[in-house]
């Protein structure tokens, strides 16, 4: 190989790279890589000392493998050896490997530092630069310790080459950032500032980054840089486009340096020296003027470079915030960009105008662009641009345009992207409060907000509207009327129910004079929402009811009856039960006077800053947040609110004037009971914990994840009844005591469990049935969880498991009867012991009967006990597999099906399903890597059945061919049937 080493390239590396690129599959690639790794390892371990070239080549290969995304755990030592090579390319590759692969706390740092030290003192500028690049790339503390005093010396020494100075400056910057304590200011500091005057533009470009960073931390020491920077900037700005030769970029003189100079000036207030300031203002004016000149080139690079400087200049103008003339000019310039055809410029103009809007000098000028910005919010096709437009509208909002802006934001909210909804909601809520002239407008806005984007309305928002309504008598009557109307909607958001419950409980009397909203009508309206609400909301409603008893004595019997009902007074939720019991008792023993005192209207809340603002500030921090993170934030926000800035706590409401000591208030406080807002109307949440491992495949869970769909799918009472009766076949026939026929979808439900053991088997409006099961050999145990989703108890609850027909002799299922009563919201468990006697095809039936509100419910499901549950995976080699495959060659032993793909053909999904099936998934058996083969043995009491499976996907045709060969033909057929439904 030495012949090749004379060239630049490494032949072995190139061949290796093309080999990798020739690999047809990920597996082949991994195989090739492993082969190479083994080869390199043996070379490195070998007795024969490797020459520099080979070492370089292998290190480079390792680097390539690492960059493909594989882990590399050797070769570091060889790379370090390369550092001390006197051949440049070897040294270079050594440094590259170190920069990419050595993390800062590596044990090798000492050896590396040694090599660096040698190169730094070599006085060979190319070697010095390599060493400095390495320090800048790794930037570890050990390196800072070793070189932090050395590098400033190199940087300011008179005889240092320009290119070394450039590297030294940025290297020092990196060390200063990682270990500021180790980089000591000193004599070199003033000399560094003077690098701004350096002849070499590259040196200035590199040094200014260092100076900017140092000035931010030590502004006084570096103050002299201001005048130097201004004069440098002035020279660049006034230079002709050809003066700076290669530092001119598409006819723009030194754009990078100009931007850096303008950024450095933003570390300081406007210059005090009149002459310097005058010069700077002149520069800024020139930059603004140039923006109006016709472009010197049509290339986007030209306009980008020019506008980069312009935006940086505008940032400086905003930073100074003292030159009204420049601020207004900047604003006009940005206004032009708002309608520019380049999306990038529109985006940046919106962003930059946001900061301009907060300056008193330019606020009015920004406001003149309101129509353009609103238009951007409506028409921009890129969500990130729309987001900027929304930000700007928020920033430019004041009393004069609040109604228009809030209206526009509300209408945008209806179609806004989910990623920015929560932030929009907060902004609307803040603006509505901040600029509310009449509070009826405020109430309307917030209720609209809940109506349009209820799911995104956090606790803070509805707390706040209640605080404001309580504190202002002039709006209470209007608020009561408006929530009453809003609650009339058939599907209204739970947050609306919360606000409605609270406000009617306090101020329902203000609208009770109207027969259309008489006390009983109000109560019935609220109570019609009760069953659809989560526990915290129900708790709030109970408090509203007791307030009703005080406000309207005539409602007392009705409400007492509700409280007395089993689903309240014996509710499985402690909080609800306690409230029901206490309120019932309170209403029956307390005299009207006592009642009136205890349940008096809430006193005004102390004036305080809106907690929504704090929340928005917090939100703005991390930038774009994913939906799940938002969810977390919401929860967190709720809890924070609970302790420090309690909103209109429901507990406080109930016990407003009662001088109850805090412990009892806590007892009533639902916060202690459940994280508020954590699980809104969780139809399927009963079993969520049990099935945390069940994965997203469980149907009911999947539905719940789609928070925004929840409202649309909120079941009405009618559909409720329909679903339940559906099991009883015909409406006219009286419900019979005989087990109903299996549900039409029973087979479908069964199919969902072929490849998994846990999940939700069935769910309707009343009942949820969850399953957990485990199998060993020919035995299985299944846990069934019956959850009552209503607030009313199920009576005469009974379940029976039957094995129809010949299944009786194939499968043995034993269980104990369950308790006959399932309380509202409660869950009971049943254990089944299953024994597989011989192979089988049918599924056992599960019949469930109970009475719900007098009506008999009767439904039958298929229990997901399928033959594959008794699989034992069998690992075997390719050779064995084919031998056995051939042995099972009788036609009836094989079952085959060709079918269309019903689900994703993604490899990982398929693998997961096959593993869930219970067989062993065999790698490297089928010559075609696209195919899957599996092997397993079905364990029954009587015999063992060996099974082999082969699945051949055809991605193009979206078809599969599934072949099963089993030692028993009925098993082949049954497995084939079952599996054809799975893919």
């Amino acid at each position, binding site marked *: 190989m030495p012949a090749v080493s004379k060239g630049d390239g490494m032949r072995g590396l190139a061949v290796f790279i*093309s080999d990798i690129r*020739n690999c047809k599959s990920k597996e082949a690639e991994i195989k090739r890589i492993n082969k190479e790794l083994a080869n390199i390892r043996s070379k490195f371990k070998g007795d024969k000392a490797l020459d520099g070239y080979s070492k370089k080549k292998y290190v480079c290969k390792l680097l390539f493998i690492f960059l493909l995304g594989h882990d590399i755990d050797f070769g570091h030592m060889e790379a370090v050896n390369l550092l001390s090579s006197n051949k440049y*390319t070897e040294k270079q590759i050594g440094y590259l490997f170190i920069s990419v692969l050595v993390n800062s706390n590596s044990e090798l740092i000492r050896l590396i530092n040694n090599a660096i030290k040698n190169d730094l003192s070599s006085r060979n500028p190319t070697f010095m630069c390599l060493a400095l690049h390495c320090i800048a*790339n790794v930037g570890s503390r050990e390196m800072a310790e070793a070189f932090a005093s050395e590098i400033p010396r190199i940087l300011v020494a008179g005889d240092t080459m320009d290119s070394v100075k450039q590297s030294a400056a940025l290297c020092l910057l990196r060390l200063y950032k990682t270990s500021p304590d180790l980089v000591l200011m000193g004599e070199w500091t003033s000399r560094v500032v003077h690098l701004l005057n350096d002849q070499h533009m590259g040196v200035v*470009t590199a040094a200014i*980054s260092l100076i900017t960073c140092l000035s931010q931390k030590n502004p006084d020491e570096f103050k002299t840089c201001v005048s130097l920077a201004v004069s440098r900037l002035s020279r660049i700005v006034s230079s002709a486009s050809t003066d700076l030769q290669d530092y001119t*970029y598409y006819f723009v003189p030194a754009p990078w340096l100009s931007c850096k100079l303008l950024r450095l000036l933003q570390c300081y207030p406007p210059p005090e020296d009149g002459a310097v300031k005058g010069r700077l203002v002149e520069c800024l004016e020139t930059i603004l003027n140039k923006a109006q000149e016709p472009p010197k080139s049509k290339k986007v690079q030209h306009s980008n470079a020019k506008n980069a400087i312009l935006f940086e200049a505008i940032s400086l103008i905003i930073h100074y915030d003292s030159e009204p003339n420049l601020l207004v000019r900047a604003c006009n310039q940005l206004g032009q960009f708002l309608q520019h055809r380049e*999306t990038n410029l529109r985006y940046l103009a919106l962003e930059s105008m946001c900061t301009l809007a907060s300056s008193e000098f330019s606020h009015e000028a920004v406001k003149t662009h309101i129509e353009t910005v609103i238009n951007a919010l409506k028409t921009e096709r890129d969500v990130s641009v729309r987001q900027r437009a929304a930000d700007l509208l928020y920033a430019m909002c004041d009393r004069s345009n609040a109604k228009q802006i809030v209206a526009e934001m509300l209408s945008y909210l209806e179609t806004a992207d989910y990623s920015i909804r929560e932030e929009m909601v907060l902004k609307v809520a803040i603006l509505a409060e901040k600029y509310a002239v009449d509070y009826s407008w405020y109430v309307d806005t917030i209720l609209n907000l809940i109506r349009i984007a209820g799911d995104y309305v956090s606790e803070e928002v509805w707390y706040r509207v209640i605080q404001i309504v309580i504190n202002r008598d002039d709006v209470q009557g209007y608020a009561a009327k408006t929530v009453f109307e809003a609650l009339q909607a058939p599907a209204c958001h739970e947050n609306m129910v919360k606000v409605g419950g609270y406000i009617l409980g306090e101020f329902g009397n203000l609208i009770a004079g109207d027969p259309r909203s008489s006390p009983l009508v109000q109560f019935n309206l609220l109570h019609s929402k009760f069953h659809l609400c989560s526990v915290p909301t129900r708790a709030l409603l109970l408090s509203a009811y007791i307030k009703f008893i005080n406000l309207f004595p005539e409602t007392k019997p009705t409400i007492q009856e509700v409280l007395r009902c089993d689903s309240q007074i014996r509710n499985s939720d402690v909080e609800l039960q306690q409230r029901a019991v206490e309120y019932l008792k309170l209403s029956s023993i307390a005299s009207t006077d006592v009642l009136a005192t205890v349940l008096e209207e809430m006193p005004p809340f102390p004036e305080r800053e809106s907690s929504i603002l704090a929340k928005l500030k917090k939100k703005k921090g991390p930038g774009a947040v994913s939906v799940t993170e938002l969810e977390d934030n919401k929860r967190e926000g709720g809890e924070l609110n609970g302790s420090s800035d309690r909103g209109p706590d429901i507990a406080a409401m109930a016990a407003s004037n009662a001088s109850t000591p805090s412990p009892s208030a806590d007892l009533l406080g639902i916060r202690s009971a459940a994280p508020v807002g954590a699980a809104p109307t969780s139809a399927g949440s009963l079993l969520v914990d049990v099935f945390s491992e069940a994965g997203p495949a469980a149907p009911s869970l999947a539905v719940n994840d789609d928070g925004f769909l929840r409202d649309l799918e909120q079941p009405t009472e009618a559909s409720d009844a329909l679903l339940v009766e559906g099991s009883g076949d015909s409406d006219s026939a009286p419900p019979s005591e005989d087990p109903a026929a299996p549900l039409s979808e029973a087979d479908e439900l069964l199919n969902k469990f072929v490849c998994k053991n846990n999940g939700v088997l069935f769910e309707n409006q009343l009942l949820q049935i969850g399953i957990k099961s485990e199998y060993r050999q020919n035995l299985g145990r299944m846990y069934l969880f019956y959850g009552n989703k209503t607030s009313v108890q199920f009576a005469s609850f009974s379940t029976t498991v039957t094995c129809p027909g010949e299944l009786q002799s194939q499968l043995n299922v034993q269980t104990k009867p369950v308790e006959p009563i399932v309380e509202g919201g409660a869950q009971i468990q049943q254990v089944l012991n299953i024994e597989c006697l011989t192979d089988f095809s049918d599924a056992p039936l599960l019949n469930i009967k109970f009475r719900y509100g007098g009506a008999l419910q009767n439904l039958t499901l298929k229990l997901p006990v399928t033959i594959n549950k008794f699989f034992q995976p069998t690992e075997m080699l390719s050779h064995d597999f084919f031998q056995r495959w051939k042995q099972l060659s009788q036609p009836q032993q094989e079952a085959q099906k060709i079918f269309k793909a019903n689900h994703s053909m993604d490899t990982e999904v398929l693998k997961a399903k096959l593993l869930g099936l219970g067989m062993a998934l065999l790698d490297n058996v089928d010559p075609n890597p696209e195919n899957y083969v599996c092997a397993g043995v079905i364990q029954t009491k009587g015999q063992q059945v060996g099974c082999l499976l082969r699945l051949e996907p055809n991605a193009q045709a979206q078809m599969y061919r599934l072949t099963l060969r089993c030692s028993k033909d009925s098993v082949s057929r049954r497995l084939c049937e079952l599996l054809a439904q799975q893919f």
Partner: protein
Amino acid sequence: MTMQFMLLFSRQGKLRLQKWYVPLSDKEKKKITRELVQTVLARKPKMCSFLEWRDLKIVYKRYASLYFCCAIEDQDNELITLEIIHRYVELLDKYFGSVCELDIIFNFEKAYFILDEFLLGGEAQETSKKNVLKAIEQADLLQEDAKVSAPSFFFHISSALTCMLYHRMSNGCPPTHGEESKCTNYVLQEAETPRSVLEEIGLT
């Protein structure tokens, strides 16, 4: 204006170059890469080149089959970063002579060396195209046997079929039919036609 990292990846989402200017664990790097590649690839051509991501700003631009993607901090200048990307592309183009994705795959180390001369620690070190290339060429001259100065080395490897193909294509010759059919789909799919990266902006 400190750049946090720069990523080069193909339209198929394959990472071609990564440069990190802030210390992060390998796991974190992989996570960021995955997330960003996905985000950027999902964006439509006419969308703006900037986006907010976590607390950083992402600036990206597509050249032929390659995406160049940089992360900068909140107060940094997006447009000048866009031109940093462009200058780097120009440097690659000048050095390789009409650069394409395959150049960067086969000469990844050179791509790193050029980047290090241009940007150091996330800051522009030398913005003059001439000066950067001079530094790289000087280094090339320092090779043990300073005979071959052309960066392309595929002359040595005519035995490797794909390399040959690559050679021809990068010189603008279409592959002969036989070669194309022997050459696996994998290669062609991945790197597509190695058009000049700069073709779209008419800089060649």
